[in-house]
């Protein structure tokens, strides 16, 4: 494995192995060998790492392909990093560099992809320069959600024409589906300049255009409009109108509010909060499906002063039982296993 030559096995050079991304299939084994050589630990740690890899791969793939997940899809791809963030908590034997581990954990996502027929570029070796200063200097917090950006940045350094079916814009989903490689191959189209500046510029412009298209789909009435300035106009109007709506609604809520006694929600909310649970110990009563189905006694209005007792949960049920015109608030939550009313319909955003 010629690519293994650049590894600093046993030297503790954590930055080096990150650069070798072109062969993810072998990559996993490289990591494993590196880790095991480095830490000389019982197979548990190597095993835990592979378990980590397996876990994070499945989780990430599952997260990304889950139909009901409905996370904000393309541009942010924040779901995958947050999903990947979790497994790291469960392997404490693992070494210190959390940023390293997170990045490593994301790679098998690509390795686990279906098509083994990667657009094989044995040709140009991936650029090494951007990576080395980064890994150890970046603290863990921004890395998770900066991660999708970094592959995008790497393409700016990729100044060479590479094989591939054309320009790929990186989203995490695309990566797990077809591409194994976390950086973009830029192919100069026919009749266009190929110097690095225009390539980078074009890449940037395409990125921005892709995001504009998404925004166009989001904002109603924008899809027919052509031209960046007008679309931006619409977006600005939409944002302004939403902000005004929030203002208006908060005013109306203020008008209606004095009648609602929020003290009664104490036990319910405290239960959700967990450690600050109210002393009444009625934590589980809050989400208890039994209380939902119980018919609230008329007159147990929220206006009555509620002691943290069993009354509080039924009182909280009361407003929701009242909603019979179709909108359901706790139809949102997964906790609501018991339908409140027969003619209830869940509102979908």
């Amino acid at each position: 494995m010629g690519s293994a030559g650049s590894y600093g096995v046993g030297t503790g050079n954590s930055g080096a192995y990150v650069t070798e991304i072109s062969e993810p299939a072998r990559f996993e084994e490289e990591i494993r060998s590196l880790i095991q050589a480095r830490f000389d630990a019982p197979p548990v740690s190597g095993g835990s790492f592979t378990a980590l890899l397996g876990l994070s791969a499945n989780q990430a793939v599952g997260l990304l392909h889950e139909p009901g997940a409905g996370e904000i899809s393309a541009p942010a791809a924040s779901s995958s990093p947050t999903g990947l963030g979790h497994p790291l908590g469960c392997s404490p034997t693992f070494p210190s560099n959390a940023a390293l581990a997170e990045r490593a954990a994301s790679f098998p996502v690509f390795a686990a992809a279906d098509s083994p027929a990667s657009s094989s570029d044995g040709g140009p070796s991936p650029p090494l320069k951007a990576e080395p200063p980064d890994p150890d200097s970046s603290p863990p917090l921004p890395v998770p959600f900066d991660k999708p950006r970094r592959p995008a940045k790497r393409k700016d350094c990729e100044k060479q024409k590479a094989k591939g079916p054309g320009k790929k814009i990186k989203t995490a989903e695309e990566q797990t589906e077809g591409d194994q490689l976390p950086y973009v191959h830029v192919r100069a189209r026919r009749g266009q300049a190929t110097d690095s500046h225009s390539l980078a510029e074009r890449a940037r412009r395409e990125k921005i255009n892709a995001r504009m298209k998404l925004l166009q789909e989001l904002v109603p009435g924008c899809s027919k409009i052509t031209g960046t300035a007008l679309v931006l106009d619409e977006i600005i109007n939409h944002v302004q109108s939403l902000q005004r709506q929030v203002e208006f609604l908060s005013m109306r809520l203020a008008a209606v509010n004095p009648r609602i006694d929020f003290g009664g929600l104490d036990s319910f909310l405290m239960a959700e909060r967990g450690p600050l649970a109210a002393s009444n110990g009625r934590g589980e009563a809050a989400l208890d499906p039994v209380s939902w189905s119980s018919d609230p006694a008329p007159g147990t209005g929220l206006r009555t002063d509620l002691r943290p007792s069993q009354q509080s949960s039924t009182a909280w049920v009361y407003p929701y039982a009242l909603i019979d015109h179709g909108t359901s608030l706790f139809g949102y939550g997964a906790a609501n296993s018991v339908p409140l009313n027969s003619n209830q319909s869940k509102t979908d955003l």
Partner: protein
Amino acid sequence: MQVTEAFKHAFLKQMLLGFQASAVSTKSMGFQERKNAIKLSADVAMAVARGSRKWTRGLIAGLSEERQNRSFLRLILGEQYESLLKPCHSSWKIPRCKKIVRRSLRICWRKQKKNQSGVLARTLVEKRTQELKRLVPGGKSMDGSSLLDETLDYVLSLRAQVDLMQSLLTTFEASKLRSHSKRRLPERKASYVSK
């Protein structure tokens, strides 16, 4: 493009906690005060439920600039508050050689001098981008593509906020109506009896 149920759930929960924390239902507040407290609570709930994004950090930073909000923020966020306020290195600058950067800038500038075609379009777009940067919280320190990213996210969250507040409103109004009518009913019965 969807918002997750978990987000809406967390949002609602946070908002109600916020209402409780700011003691919105006590009679001692004036109308304006109450409205501001509700709006503050809703905004913080949205930011907390969304997690860590550029616009959420910008939003909380913007809110904490007013002194009166700070105690509320500290109460709700707890220890996260301090870490959020710490100046985040949001621009992870890639260390670049100045000579190379200067050279490439010179080339770009020369190219721009040659084709002045899209200048009008560009200034229009520039103006709009500036405006958008003002609207989206924390937008000042974002570059073009991440600005659009954050706008997308922000619009989705704003929509969720509007929907949530609307359903909350209808709930409260409905419950108020019910309790009013239920109160009146025994009175009416009494009047019949008396007749």
